[in-house]
């Protein structure tokens, strides 16, 4: 099937509005989603993309307007109803059932049966095959929760795609994926499109949008500001529409390239983390970060980047290894003591490990800095308010005020709240695990700029990002990991995406070679014993 503009829309919304309390999240939005085409939804954090998806698929009730599915006005009573009607959705940051195995998750809600009982054998085989399509080869019997966030995201995608749906909606599917996975995902999106599926694709990564999508819709403050074929727009126009600012204005503020600062190699390291080992997770990883230096950690999903950061932060016990700040060794393995030693950590899983959803923005920001804001056990509210205001404005957190509940913010704004929490600690070392995950282009530039600025002020930064580009552009040196072991480091101009990928690929080759060489002889003596 080929996509033609005249085909009737599979899914359409007309004059859709949605209000949360006082906030207008969607304002009179009308969109047509056609079969055999990939439709991108873009916009700043909090523009209303996720809300639109949730209203369409029956998560939230419609305030006004209507949803047309296959030409019929339809109100889905629940996500289940939408799914049964043939709309498969990967919601933003939704974890599946972490305690169930990968295969069981893959088939959750549409289990394969044999004689009334789950056909686990077939479920395992088919789930493994389904994941193969995405190049994911994991033991599908492992509990999903044991796998990294990226793998979980891939499972969710594979699950949705394999349901033979008429419409597949993906809300920021690539936020935890690294380039190789993104590529695979996009090729699957291509396949879906060819088979006539209507795909809705939300992303902040404009490269993906331009390479995979046929039509783009831009939302701003809940309103539809532009919709049209991809061919009729370009990157700059798109950004200016999203932000509502002139393209010229944008150029000035643009700040993506972080590297290129004066070398800092001669300064004494702030953070020394050496020979970090943790059974089955980390194997002798070492990092040295000097003031003003940004050290990137690169590697594939599950290579142990997050674990490295967590062990440095004391959140994951170490089997062996030495960590010191300014030459002073750190012994107590607890986040609280690391914070006292001026190390701050931004976790990658913002929902599970970052925000306290029921608390206000103010309280979320002030949390880690409480000891400094407390006198005689009581919180000095004016001091807290002052600090919060500084970061609230500086990071341009989009909310009606610091007293709004964090759970009501869009994902990107939640991320900014977490960054603010770290920054008000006045840290000397920043461990940032996916700091720009799920945040929009404007905010991303701001965050990247902020990182550069902080580094310039003499902070030592460890940067983990699944966007290789970000690591390459932002780091003064890069440590490459694979399977919890350190493959090597790159410095200065040697840091390129190709160099990193080569390093990883080489290691994979040699490992395969080793396995075939050592595997046989090793088994022999064992058997003879």
């Amino acid at each position, binding site marked *: 099937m080929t996509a033609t503009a005249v085909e009737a829309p599979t899914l359409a919304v007309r004059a859709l509005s949605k209000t949360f309390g006082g906030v207008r999240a969607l304002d009179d939005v009308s969109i047509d989603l056609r079969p055999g085409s990939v439709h991108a939804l873009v916009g700043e954090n909090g523009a209303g993309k996720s809300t639109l998806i949730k209203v369409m698929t029956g998560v939230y009730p419609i305030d006004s307007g209507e949803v047309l599915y296959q030409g019929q006005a339809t109100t889905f009573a629940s996500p*289940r109803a939408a799914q049964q009607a043939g709309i498969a959705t990967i919601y933003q940051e939704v974890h599946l*059932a972490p*305690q169930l195995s990968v295969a069981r998750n893959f088939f959750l*809600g549409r*289990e394969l049966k044999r004689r*009334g009982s789950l056909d686990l054998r077939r479920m395992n085989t088919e789930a*493994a095959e389904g994941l193969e399509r995405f190049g994911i*080869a994991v033991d599908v019997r492992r509990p999903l929760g044991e796998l990294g966030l990226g793998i979980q995201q891939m499972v969710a995608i594979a699950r949705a795609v394999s349901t033979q749906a008429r419409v597949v909606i993906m809300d920021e599917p690539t936020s935890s994926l690294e380039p190789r996975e993104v590529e695979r995902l996009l090729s699957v999106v291509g396949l879906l499109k060819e088979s006539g599926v209507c795909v809705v694709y939300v992303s902040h990564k404009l490269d993906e949008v331009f390479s995979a999508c046929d039509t783009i819709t831009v939302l701003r403050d809940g309103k539809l500001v532009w919709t049209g074929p991809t061919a009729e727009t370009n990157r700059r126009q798109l950004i200016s529409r999203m932000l509502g600012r002139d393209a010229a204005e944008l150029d000035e503020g643009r700040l993506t390239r972080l590297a290129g600062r004066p070398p800092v190699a001669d300064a004494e390291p702030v953070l020394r983390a050496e020979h970090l080992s943790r059974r089955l997770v980390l194997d002798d990883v070492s990092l040295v970060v000097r003031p003003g230096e940004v050290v990137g950690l690169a590697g594939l999903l599950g290579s142990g980047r997050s674990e490295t950061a967590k062990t440095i932060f004391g959140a994951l016990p170490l089997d062996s290894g030495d960590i010191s700040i300014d030459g002073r060794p750190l012994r107590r393995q607890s986040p609280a003591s690391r914070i006292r030693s001026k190390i701050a950590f931004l976790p990658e899983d913002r929902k599970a490990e970052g925000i306290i959803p029921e608390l206000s923005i103010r309280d979320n920001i002030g949390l880690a800095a409480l000891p400094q804001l407390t006198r005689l056990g009581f919180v000095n509210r004016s001091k807290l308010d002052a600090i919060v205001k500084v970061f609230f404005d500086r990071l341009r957190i989009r909310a009606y005020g610091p007293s709004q509940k964090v759970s009501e913010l869009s994902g990107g704004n939640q991320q900014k709240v977490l960054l603010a929490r770290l920054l008000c600690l006045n840290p000397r070392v920043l461990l940032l695990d996916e700091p720009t995950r799920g945040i929009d282009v404007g905010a991303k530039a701001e965050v990247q700029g902020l990182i550069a600025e902080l580094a310039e002020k003499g902070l030592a930064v460890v940067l983990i990002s699944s966007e290789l580009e970000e690591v390459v552009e932002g780091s003064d040196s890069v440590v490459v990991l694979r399977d919890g072991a350190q493959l090597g480091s790159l410095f200065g101009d040697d840091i390129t995406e190709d160099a990193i990928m080569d390093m990883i690929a080489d290691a994979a080759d040699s490992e395969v070679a080793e396995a075939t060489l050592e595997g046989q002889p090793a088994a022999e003596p064992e058997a003879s014993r």
Partner: protein
Amino acid sequence: MTVDRDEVRAAADGSGVAAVAPDRGGRAADLLRTRNLTSIVSRNAAVVGLAVVVIVGIIVVPTFGSVDNFRNVALAASFIAIIAVGMTFVIINGGIDLSVGSTYALAVILSAMMSPYGSAVAVLVPLVVTAAVGLLQGLIIARLRLPAFIVTLAGLTGIRGLVFLITHEGNDVPQIPGFKVFEILGTGSFIGIGNPVWIAIVLFAIGWWVLNRTAFGQSVQAVGGNAQAAELMGLPVKRTTATVYVISGLCAGIAGVLTTALSGGGQEARIGDAYELQAIAAVVIGGTLLSGGVGSMVGTAAGIALLFVIQNLIVQGANLNSYVQQVVSGGFLLIVVILQATVSRRSGKAT
């Protein structure tokens, strides 16, 4: 944490699907093996604990190891064990059912009341009523989204009120007139083991199967893990939630009918007081998390056995007065759960 035993075994055999990412070499395989080993221990902490207590008991307390004693412990445990099957579903689903003691009493009384009309009536009426009571609470919890703790707490109070109502403030102690066939369910035995024990075993098997081998069981676990995510995944969250309370009510009903069948006579209206706490304790000792999502039927069986074996050991082994008994059994409970928590934390995911 709920990989099935046979799945683990299959992995160890190397049967089944390619277990490990080909490009991840031996490390991942190592990792898989160790995780499975430790998680077997952690998931079965209650089984291990039970084994230890039984072995120590047999050595230390001579009369404890007799066949008769085991038979009796099993029979005594079977009623709450049956209640705990339902409780396991509820707790894995992320809820709790405090009403089971009262629901059980309702079934006990109804079964005796209905016995003049025949054995079938004496069995079926209580089951239908207790299932309905479970359904009502389940619907309130699922549809009105009220907290299960409070709804079933109200159930505990209200259903007991109902029991008092039908017994005229507990004045009536309905009796079974003469012998009725259904009494065999309680008094009969097969190869020396009482029928209630067999029924409990069968219910545990069915419970295990439903939990691990049916789509409904998957839903129960997914909803317990994260109800919101389950909703977004398109699972029938409300139906699943309501159903687990029906199962729980039904299990309490079965236990009640068996109690009447065994005693052959009526029981006072206050029977079953605080059974919910025993059932919950057993489920939790069995490794099921009250936060939902994670749990196992085998664990619950071991948990129940552990509770009753300890109680029996106190009777068999020492001659304690009632309040020292209380201190000992409370202390034992604490020790077991502390060990359980420590073991599963050591071997499970580190935090």
